């Protein structure tokens, strides 16, 4: 069984309807296909042996100006003969030529042909011409007449005699001749058989329908094969935002490690954001150029007196912790100012004020704010990965191990922990991860053990391992970005194109 594509079937069937053999023009007309398609299809049909291609030569002949003149007045030898007959069959060449009104240069031609056709003979001694026979119309004259009537003829369509006459006129340079190849298609037996098969398969179907399925008619139709390589229209799935995917991965890792998720307000009092974390009230990080303060509402409320008083004392003189403190007068009003939280540690310390029983393992991956201009490396809003481990005997090494596990699970295998400084942790460190593309160490996370000045006012006795790192930087490594604004630009083109994170 031969599989026919739609165009092939149309072409074959048009060929059959045209009597099994026809020209391209006829095929185009009959099939309704564009000419290029017919030619292409016919050639593939030829390759399959379903069609034979005959190439026919068509030679068109047409009189030139001299030919046309001869057709009107008669060939020079005819005119010479007619003149000779008028002069009673015999006359001097001079007289005959004059009688025939022949141009001078035509005389030798006329004389040559009249003798060649044996219509007359020239006595060269006397230079007189003598008629030999009646001289019926010759085949060259007939074709001349035909050409004159039709304007042009196809040489191959003429009979043998006519074709010989054409050759004569051609030699006498009376014709314009142009040759052209014409293709004729002929359906083969195999072609007819293939078409028959088709006819028996009844119907071709593009779209399978419920009707075809339910009526089982699909069994009797031919489902057309598609060009599976042809491009289809694009569709875009609903998806999680790439940054959200990174957030979810970070959350999963901590959940896998047995941490409980916490969530707190975006607007905080300076008390929880700074004071409770032993950041002195004149610390540069608390300045307007780093932290967003609210104009309305402007101030909030402080927690219980117990906590506030011990935090105040820790700042002023170290309270019971043995610390020197910062040595200044702590201000309630400064602590009441409302800020957009600059770190999620504000939530962590609040959690510790309410949960004191070890072991505690909590985390958050959440939104924080810094007073930053929007640039390729900074945004005023971003996410922080935050967590703590509280237990009797946890150590700085445990903190390093926790962070190392986290980054390893993120696929970042090369981690180092360099000494660092934060006002609320001691000892402190920063998690450095080697960026293979940038070929340098980049800082991903600040960490340390909460200072006694931080834990004592909350009534926490155990060491508190704490960390807080940027999520966006991690996301940029993962997503191969060098401009952080891309993460919040919500460019549809990027969102649609970016595959899910693996």
């Amino acid at each position, binding site marked *: 069984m031969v599989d026919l594509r739609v165009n092939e079937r149309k072409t074959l069937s048009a060929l059959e309807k045209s009597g099994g053999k026809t020209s391209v023009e006829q095929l185009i007309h009959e099939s309704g296909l564009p000419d290029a398609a017919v030619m292409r299809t016919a050639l593939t049909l030829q390759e399959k042996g379903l069609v034979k291609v005959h190439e026919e030569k068509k030679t068109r002949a047409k009189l030139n100006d001299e030919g046309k003149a001869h057709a009107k007045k008669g060939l020079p030898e005819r005119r010479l003969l007619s003149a000779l007959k008028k002069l009673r069959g015999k006359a001097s060449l001079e007289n005959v030529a004059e009688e025939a009104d022949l141009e001078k240069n035509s005389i030798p031609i006329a004389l040559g042909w009249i003798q060649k056709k044996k219509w007359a003979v020239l006595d060269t001694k006397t230079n007189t011409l003598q008629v030999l026979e009646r001289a019926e119309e010759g085949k060259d004259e007939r074709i001349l007449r035909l050409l004159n009537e039709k304007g042009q003829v196809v040489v191959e369509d003429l009979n043998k005699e006519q074709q010989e006459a054409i050759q004569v006129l051609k030699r006498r340079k009376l014709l314009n001749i142009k040759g052209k190849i014409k293709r004729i298609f002929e359906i083969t037996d195999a072609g007819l058989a293939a078409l028959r098969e088709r006819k028996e398969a009844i119907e071709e179907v593009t779209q399978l329908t419920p009707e075809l399925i339910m009526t089982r008619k699909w069994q009797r139709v031919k489902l057309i094969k598609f060009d599976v390589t042809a491009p289809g229209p694009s569709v875009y*799935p*609903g*998806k*999680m*935002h790439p940054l*959200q995917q990174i957030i979810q991965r970070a*959350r999963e890792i901590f959940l896998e490690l047995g941490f*409980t*998720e916490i*969530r707190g*307000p*975006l*607007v905080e009092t300076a008390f929880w954001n700074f004071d409770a974390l032993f950041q002195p009230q*004149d610390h*540069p990080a608390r300045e*307007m*150029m780093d932290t*967003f303060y*609210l104009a*309305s*509402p402007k101030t909030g*409320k402080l927690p219980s007196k117990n906590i506030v008083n011990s935090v105040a004392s820790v700042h002023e003189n*170290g309270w019971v*912790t*043995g610390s020197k403190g910062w040595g200044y007068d702590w201000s309630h009003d400064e602590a009441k100012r*409302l800020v*957009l939280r600059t770190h999620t540690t504000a939530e962590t310390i609040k959690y510790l004020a309410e949960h004191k029983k*070890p072991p505690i*393992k909590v985390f958050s991956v959440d*939104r924080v704010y810094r*007073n*930053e201009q*929007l640039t390729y490396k900074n945004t*005023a*809003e971003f996410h922080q990965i935050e967590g703590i*481990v509280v237990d009797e*005997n946890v*150590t*700085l*090494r445990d903190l*390093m191990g*926790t962070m*190392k596990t986290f980054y390893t699970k993120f696929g970042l295998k090369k981690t*180092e*922990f*360099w*000494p660092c*400084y934060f006002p609320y942790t*001691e*000892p402190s460190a920063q998690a*450095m991860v080697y960026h293979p593309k940038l070929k340098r*160490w980049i800082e991903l996370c600040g960490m340390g*053990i909460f200072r006694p000045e931080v834990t004592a006012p909350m009534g926490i006795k155990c*060491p508190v391992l704490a960390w807080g790192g940027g999520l966006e930087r991690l996301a940029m490594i993962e997503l191969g970005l060098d401009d952080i604004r891309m993460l*919040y630009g*919500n460019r*549809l*083109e990027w*969102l*649609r194109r970016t595959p899910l994170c693996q």
Partner: protein
Amino acid sequence: MPVITLYKERFSKFVGRKITIEDMTKHLPWIGFDLEEIGEDYVKVEYNPNRIDFCSYAGVARTLKGFMGLEKGLPAYVTKEPETTLIIDKAVANIRPFMLAGVVRNIKFDDDSIVELMEMQEDLHWGIGRDRKKASIGIHNLDVIKPPFKFTAVEPTKAKFVPLGKNEKMDLKEILEKHEKGAAYRHLVDWAPKYPLLIDKDGAVLSMPPIINGELTRVDANTRNLFLDVTGTSYDAVENSLKVLSAALADMGGTIEKVAVKYSDRTVVSPNLNPEKMKLNVNYANRLLGLELSDVETVKCLQKCRMDARKVGKGVLEVSFPAYRIDILHEVDLVEEVGIGYGYNRLKPTIPAAVTVGEQHPTHRLANSTRQIMIGLGLLEVMNFTLTNERLHYKFVRMKPEKTIRLANPVSTEYSIMRQALLPGLLNNLTENKHESFPQRLFEVSDVVKVDKKLEAMCERRLHVAAVSSHSMANFTEVKSLCEALLANLALKNWQIKEARHPTFLEGRSAAVCIKDRCLGVLGEIHPQVLNNFGLENPTAAFEIDLELLMK
């Protein structure tokens, strides 16, 4: 964070042996420096603001020498007894009450060290002085002035001198008005009837603290003897600045000589470069670091960090640390020194033993269920900032501002308030993506912030979900179907879609989603005026729901 650029040739002189770029990049991170930039012949490093003593080549060198084992223990500082007197006039008590001073003799500068001295001064002004408020430094050529010196206060037009960098005399008022430094720091003095002034025996002006020095005492590469003054509003900050500065100048080769500072009620001798002492429990250090160091090993670690210690009891050390280590507040700060001396790179990471059961926050669980349904409905998630502006947030969506949460110090007019709804942000996303193919169906599950005076922070964070569908055939029916599909799959029952008016939506094509009398949110076709405001060309339908109301 402050930065210092260490050129290897010059730095080698301070260390006292050849230091390569590799030496620096290998060791400096483990002392607490961040490698900012590595050049052919220099390394640019960031240091932490608590280690203000790293603001000079001398300061970095003396720490590195300890860390590399070239020198160990306390650096010794000899200070000579005072020959110079400074008198503090009572007149400064209400403006800038504290001043301490020191003298440095026989110092040899070159052009590099003058630059370094100026940078050090700026770092101290910032790090300890809080931009000159708490403390500010003046460094003078001692050879052109005559002690005793006097720190006093005078009326703004009663004194004239040539300020540093100028050619002509100006009075104090003119300096505040016309000099660059005067304009920058005038707020520190311009409220007082009299301005602080430091003069010598003959009334020659050394400086007008904390604004500007006099041209008279300019220090250059040929200066050999220095007079240091630190004035300020915090005695501790003044003392600490002087300690760090004197120690650095001593390390640069100067001889430190004390100054007798006479207040009306007492005399103080400064600078005090004697080491400070603090007790350290070895077991405390071991417990926090996860180590089992002996007393002797602990001492060795401290010595690498330029400290010394002696045993004063079982497992108890008395640690002496240099005067410039003003960052040591508590025993725990010494624990970190032990850790750094031991080497953070030698601390093997371990996993905490505690077994705990993790749990996600219920709000985030709900957020994720919502996301899953919205994605299943074929919508694409976007993430917008919670900061926005009134034009976009209220005006464009035809809403009136109500209880707006406004920033006192917005970084730009574009981000000046906290959002109370997600929808304006989503409409803005459509504006930004007008050139992309349609349909465009977007959603966001995120925070909005609303005023709630019952709370400590007066503001409540609430989880919302919002969605938009924008294409030539978008309409109420489509978005109602989406909204109801979400509610049904969040296991909600008995909700009602009620006719409701909302300025953002077309009347007759907007509704409220309610359960009994509680309104969860709104849905409908966006009003054509709103579409025009956002420059949108396609019909758009949307909904927004407060998910907090679904939490049990």
